[in-house]
């Protein structure tokens, strides 16, 4: 692979994945700015290691895993000690004209890390349980369990709010 080919390949990959990764990051964190950082950090890692990443069957799956793990690490650092992460103050509405949508995303952000990742990937990208399990490197049963619990929590939260 020549450098020119590699550059072109990465650019195509970037353009195809960037906004999807930002959306996942925003679903996970609630902050557009932080999601942008997460997506760019993820894609920077892809860029640095593109010779290897480009040989993966689905480079986008690897990128999603990196992004999810980065967001979890960022979230845990604050959440573990119940300190308020900076991005809490930066949460911006997704759809100002549709409060139910923002209520949904607020409820998603309240889920535990793994449930949140599973729910976001399932709804934002319409991914199957098997697909999410492979993408996150966790057991299928864990994905089913996480998705089931996440949905149950969301249903309860939405019910309370309506």
């Amino acid at each position, binding site marked *: 692979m020549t450098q020119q080919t590699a550059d072109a390949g990465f650019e195509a990959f970037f353009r195809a994945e960037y906004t*999807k990764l930002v959306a996942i990051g925003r679903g996970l964190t609630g902050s557009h700015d932080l999601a*942008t950082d997460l997506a760019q950090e993820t894609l*920077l890692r892809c860029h640095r290691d593109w010779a290897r990443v480009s040989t993966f069957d689905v480079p986008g799956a690897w990128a999603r895993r990196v992004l999810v793990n980065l967001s979890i690490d960022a979230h845990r650092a604050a959440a573990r000690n119940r300190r308020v992460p900076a991005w809490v103050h930066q949460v911006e509405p997704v759809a100002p004209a549709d409060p139910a949508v923002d209520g949904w995303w607020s409820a998603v952000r309240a889920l*535990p890390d793994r449930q949140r990742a599973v729910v976001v990937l399932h709804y934002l990208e319409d991914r199957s349980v098997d697909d999410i399990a492979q993408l996150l490197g966790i057991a299928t049963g864990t994905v089913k369990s996480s998705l089931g619990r996440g949905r149950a929590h969301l249903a309860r939260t939405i*019910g309370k709010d309506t």
Partner: protein
Amino acid sequence: MDHLDRPNQTEALGRRAAAAMHADVERRSDVGDALSRVQHGSGATMVSLTSDASRARRLLPAWIGAAAAVAVVATGSAAFLLTRDDGISRVVPADTTAPADTTSADSTAPTNTTEDAGAATTQPENLAPVTTAAPTPASTVPSLPATDVDALAGLTPPAPLDAFQVPAMLPSTPFADPALVRLTGFSTPIEAVTGLHQTWASVDGRILTISTAIGGSTQRLGDVPIEVWPWDSAALVSSMSDGFAELVLRDPSGEVSLWASGFTGDQLTTIARSMFLAEGRWWLGPDAPSDLVRLHEGWGRTSFATRMLQWDDAGRQGEVLVTIGMPDTIRTVPDFAVTVVDSINGAPALVTDLPGGAAISWSPAPDVVVLVGITGTVDEVIELARSMTFVDVSTWNAAGIADTSPADGCNSYFFC
């Protein structure tokens, strides 16, 4: 709204929320600018986080974070080493004056969960729950500031070790089908001691953790200074979520942090001002709530070790996590209210009623925390916890199938 409609409504709203998210992100994103930033390496503001250690931590519940593994357990003047010199779990009296044996241990991770089935029984008979008793103040706590007092005198961290083994525990009732049971063991090389953690709880679920870290402290921007004798400085952490409070006491040689749920900053300040030093530790004094019981004491380290047992029988799921040196695990699931149960074989326990399940945590011995979650009721999880006993490694290995998957995600049913 009829609750029977909620699943469908949840699905429909989820799809609508996803579409709205994609539309808003598309509207706000400048792909060309972002591409340029990444191609020039200037786009990232996040710290690189996917180190081996970080990946390994993801095997643990989310709230454990950078918790630790500990091989020295201490209660009063007695100390024990949990060693892994021959592939079995055992507890032996420790010679605290001798250096740890570092020649026979395999410090590489992960721990093989299919340990020598012929290993000797390792029932740690000398493990006992953390006592709820605490020293009483030897004298009245002075109220005048003094600047020449070493507030951390007497606390000596354990020497770093590189061999450890988490005790194996099983419910007393054997599993009907071991093929449905998954066993996971994991450890990373022990690196450094981060501090001593003591966790207390009230019957109504308020939690207080006193963490003592030797060797420096970190001043946080925005913290609110207060005065607490004999500390050089003290402050209330300003960025806490509602219902939580943290107070940090700083000395040149280290710091003591009081982290609490269900207490206000003022209440923490009152507690901090009546604390006293004994046995090298800071203890709750007379102004602390009298209904607090001590749940756990253990050293944190920048690494960890755990055994996890999971079963899934047609949707009836359960999980047992036994850890050494991961103090945060005693908090079960911090997002949910807890109550204290007295007792699990002599140890007070925290119980959490989860959506669709229940969880319980207790410390059967210093540094050891057991966490159990099931898709069942609080009463059922308490009953299960009370049936848990230490077993030898061969018995543990026979209870299920070793999970040898290379997955580096968190596989917990309940705690992620």
